């Protein structure tokens, strides 16, 4: 049975970002055509023209689950304040907690992440922490009140796929009952499928779809990939082996030489 995210069962394992699309119409079509059930969103300064309201109306019309982020935050205070603003604007307790620690890799600052996760969890937020694959950090985040972990596959926007499958597999084994999401670094559907084959519960991606030549087609490809990966995981794949093992029976083969 599928794991729930703070009591909510996702319609499918694809969480899709809303940034960087060529146009709002293409963004909308990517969601409608792929059927992605979760949209990540952000908060930014509102302009005089009310651009934020137009965007919000489009997201609301999509009828998807909304996961606001704290993208770009570098301190606990900044992230906590942003989370409060997001809770009010988006009317949800869900928050994708990002605390950036390194400018080039956008690697999470896991020390501040744990601190902010504790503060927000105690305040009633349902925190989706963007973290590394470190098991001890994962443990601390769960102790802080998180009921979901979102390790990176690779740096945000890099499209490298799963940089450390060994560690992601270890994470899956260590936290068998915790909903796990590979967040960031996905470039291809095969990466997304690989994450699901490892037993992850969902994949969160943005750039791979938004910056593809045909974002709508890529969104559909990603959905196909996560669903295939999930089904494959449930189907109990065979173990890899070094030597061949004939699949066609030897018994009954005609003697012809």
């Amino acid at each position, binding site marked *: 049975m599928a794991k729930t995210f703070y009591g909510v069962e996702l319609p499918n394992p694809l969480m899709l*970002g*809303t*940034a*960087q*699309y060529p146009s709002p119409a293409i*963004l909308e079509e990517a969601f409608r055509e792929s059927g992605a059930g979760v949209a*990540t*969103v*952000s*908060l*930014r*300064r*509102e302009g*005089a023209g*009310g*651009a*934020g*309201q137009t*965007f*919000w109306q489009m*997201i609301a019309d999509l009828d998807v689950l909304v996961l*606001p*982020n704290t*993208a770009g935050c570098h301190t606990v*205070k900044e992230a906590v*304040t942003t989370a*409060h*603003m*997001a809770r*009010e*604007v*988006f009317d949800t307790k869900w928050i994708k907690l990002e605390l950036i620690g390194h400018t080039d890799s956008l690697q999470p600052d896991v020390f501040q992440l744990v601190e902010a996760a504790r503060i927000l969890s105690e305040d009633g937020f349902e925190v989706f922490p963007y973290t590394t694959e470190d098991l001890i950090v994962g443990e601390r985040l769960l102790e802080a009140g998180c009921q979901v972990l979102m390790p990176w596959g690779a740096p*945000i926007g890099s499209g490298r796929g799963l940089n450390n499958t060994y560690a992601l597999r270890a994470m899956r084994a260590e936290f068998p009952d915790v909903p796990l999401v590979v967040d*960031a670094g996905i470039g291809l559907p095969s990466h997304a499928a690989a994450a699901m084959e490892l037993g992850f519960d969902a994949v969160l991606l*943005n*750039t791979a779809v938004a910056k593809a030549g045909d974002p709508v087609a890529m969104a559909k490809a990603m959905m196909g990939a996560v669903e295939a990966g999930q089904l494959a995981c449930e189907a109990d794949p065979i173990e890899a082996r070094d030597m061949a093992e004939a699949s066609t029976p030897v018994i009954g083969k005609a003697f012809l030489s």
Partner: protein
Amino acid sequence: MKIVLNGEAREVAATDLTGLLAECGFSGRVATSLNEEFVPAGLRAGQTLTDGDRVEVVAPMQGG
């Protein structure tokens, strides 16, 4: 009074946050902060402004 709104210096007549949002044409889903502290919607009316205050008004935006 002079305040800084979303990073830009502004001369405004409003004396509280609710008045400021109306004066500057903000409506719909927005959240506010005053001097880097979150001000919930329900407290905006009672939040008086003083010279030099830094106000942020944010709204839904694309994100990953």
